[in-house]
């Protein structure tokens, strides 16, 4: 094997190893673990809206009402209520408005599809853009072609990343 082929193999190996390492690291950090009660309270309060604030969650807000709501959630979690029951208790008093996500079993759940739909539509448009062949650049006169060849050879020798000379 020539030195060049060795180098190429090395590069490919490093890319593969690198990608695998990233995937493993991400999977490792995504491993499920048992949720502590404190984490459960944090999760529930992140989804509840502080009633006296401008859209902050109960978890984020330092307001007195938010702290009292948090205490209530802590108590209910300790009592063993389910997430649904705890949230419903607040919804009974304040309506759907107090939940920071749109209710799942309704038309509103469609908002979750918006980004997906946008990406699909955009992707389709982009795909069409790519299917059309690119416009053909005009033929260069012979003298220019020779000069261009020489320049390309020089740049390749210098290992420049693109066709632009800095």
């Amino acid at each position, binding site marked *: 094997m020539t030195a060049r082929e060795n180098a190429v193999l090395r590069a490919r190996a490093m890319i593969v190893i690198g990608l695998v390492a990233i995937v493993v690291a991400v999977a490792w950090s995504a491993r499920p673990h048992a949720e502590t009660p404190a984490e459960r309270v944090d999760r529930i309060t992140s989804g509840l809206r502080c009633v006296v604030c401008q859209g902050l969650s109960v978890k*984020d807000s330092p307001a007195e009402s938010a702290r009292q709501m948090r205490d209530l959630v802590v108590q209910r979690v300790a009592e063993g209520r389910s997430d649904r029951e705890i949230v419903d208790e607040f919804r009974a008093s304040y309506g759907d408005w107090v939940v*920071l*996500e749109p209710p799942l079993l309704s038309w509103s759940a469609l908002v979750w599809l*918006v980004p997906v739909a946008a990406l699909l539509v955009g992707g389709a448009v982009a795909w069409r853009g*790519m299917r*059309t062949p690119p416009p053909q650049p005009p033929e260069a006169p012979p003298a220019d072609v020779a000069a261009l060849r020489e320049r390309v050879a020089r740049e390749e020798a210098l290992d420049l*990343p*693109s066709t*632009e000379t800095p």
Partner: protein
Amino acid sequence: MSWADLGSAALRAALPVAIWGCGAAAYAAAKRDGRGLASARWSSLLALVLVSLAVVGMEGSLLTHDFSVQYVAQNNARETPTFFTVISLWAALEGSILLWTLVLTGATAYVAWRGTRELPRLATAALAVLLAMLAFFLLLVTTPAADPFVRIDPPFDGNGPNPLLQNHPLMALHPPLLYLGYVLFSVPFAYAIASLVLGEGGDRWLVATRRFALVSWALLGVGIVAGSWWSYAVLGWGGYWAWDPVENAAIMPWLTATAYLHSVMVEEKRRLLRTWNLSLVITTFALTILGTFLTRSGVVNSVHAFTQSAIGPLLLGYLVAIVVLSVGLLLWRMPRLAESGGVGAPLSREAIFLFQNVVFVAATLTVLLGTLYPLIAEAVSGAQLSIGRPYFDRVEVPLALALLFLMGIGPQLPWHGASRATLERQFTAPVVAGACGAVLAVVLGIGGAFAVLTYALAAFVAATVVQEFARGVHARGVLHGEGPAEALANLLRRSGRRYGGYIVHLGIVVIAVAVATSQAGTVQVEKTLAPGDTVAAGPYLVRLVALRDAAEPQRDLLVADLAISGNGADTRLSPALVFYPNSTQAVGSPGIAAGPRDDLYTILAAYDNRAKAWATIRVLVIPLVSWLWVGGLIVGLGAVVAALPQPRRGIATRRAVEVPVAVET
């Protein structure tokens, strides 16, 4: 004659001047008439002088505490410090619109005097568009809905600025930056409309407005970061972004403007994506108006809902007119724009730019719909519901990560397509760096898959940028014999657009890492303390020393003195509750100890209002959050480098250097 009389008269005089100028410019563009152009030019200049006089009149009224002017009575008081008096020009609606008008007039005058010398006919038509917009804003500012010089029976003392607005000197920075960003985008929009109307101009308008678009984008971006800083330092909840409707209103045009800045490169280089670029310009401008509308009309409840006013319907009408006219023009001219071919290879720089267009638009659409959905739901079915952080975070984070990825591979791919060898050569080091980033995140214990992925992508992008700089410096060394420092300086000067862009990418990477780390690793602790008690938060120990009253000239404070120790720290922080005389609610003022590794953020959440025997203190340890502001600064610096005019020189190199024919890598 009082200052207010001066200002009011100036504004009313400016309106007919703008209308005349618009007509003159339109005539000049249609008939290629030189005198019409001269007339339009002088109208623009006169309008600038008049609107400047109006601003002087408002500042004069503010500084002399002229409470017969309603705006001054509502936003100023005798004890207000001079600094805050001056910046109350933009404290509320009417003054903000006046500031907007001033910036718009400035941009119009610039186009009138500089722009028309470069691209006479196109710029003249653009000038007509700008003057039409200026006429609208002057009309707005002279109607009772938004007239800053409305007179009332003067009270003895004014209300003073809203408490939230005089807590921090950042109020000086955030609105002007945002307005400059918003308004300067009118110029590329005006050129785009002119190009559509005249059916000509091809791609030249992009080049003519490139700097305006870049500067506007940079100011908007830095303005948003300044707003985040204000939210963090002033609003006192420990966070910097809450997906508040007004925050969303600012970021939407920034997202499409970013897409536009990149996408124009494809048009310049390969004359493709014309429809995309025109659509992006129109969308960005429409979003700036929508943003103003959402902030000022009172239809959404938000942090900025200081005033509700009758300006809402007027702004909505303006928005509708803009959208209908520009979309109509675009659809009319679309056959003429038809491009001669497609993008071609998926692994090419232009394809990446096309992908980033799609992702940015998807991100913007999501924010738009998320912000407006509660309005829609209530209009349709009367149901009141909320869409907040959980939705936006969950949807926007993956899109942001996709953009980070595209940011890394885009600059590395050549135009027209890449071969496999190119890919391997370009991406070996960045992928390895990405792996190191991922491993670093795991080792540091930064939790969550998204955080690890962010670290990996951030390292990937950073490595590509470093690689580009290294290659550029190396190439200059070989071609021109320059040393590294000189080569670097020349890279920034001669290829400022490219390398300035890389610096911006680095800034974004810093912001991404700061956001991911602060979101994943914040420690929040709350405890009720009596003086002498301590609470532990992360590695720090916080002791309540005392709870005391303090009085300043225009406000009273209740201060909690805290002593911080642990982890090598030894400081005092004083979070407080601030009481303004004319406001019933207290405003929280956090005590923040900022540092390169983390910020210690303290909030006085509650206190014993009878005997000051206890206080509830909330302490947050937020890692790396200060790097957010540093990242914003880097983005700004990169934009400056990219916007600087390049020195003109010949293409041929000055010094001939012997170059070996083949070099082993």
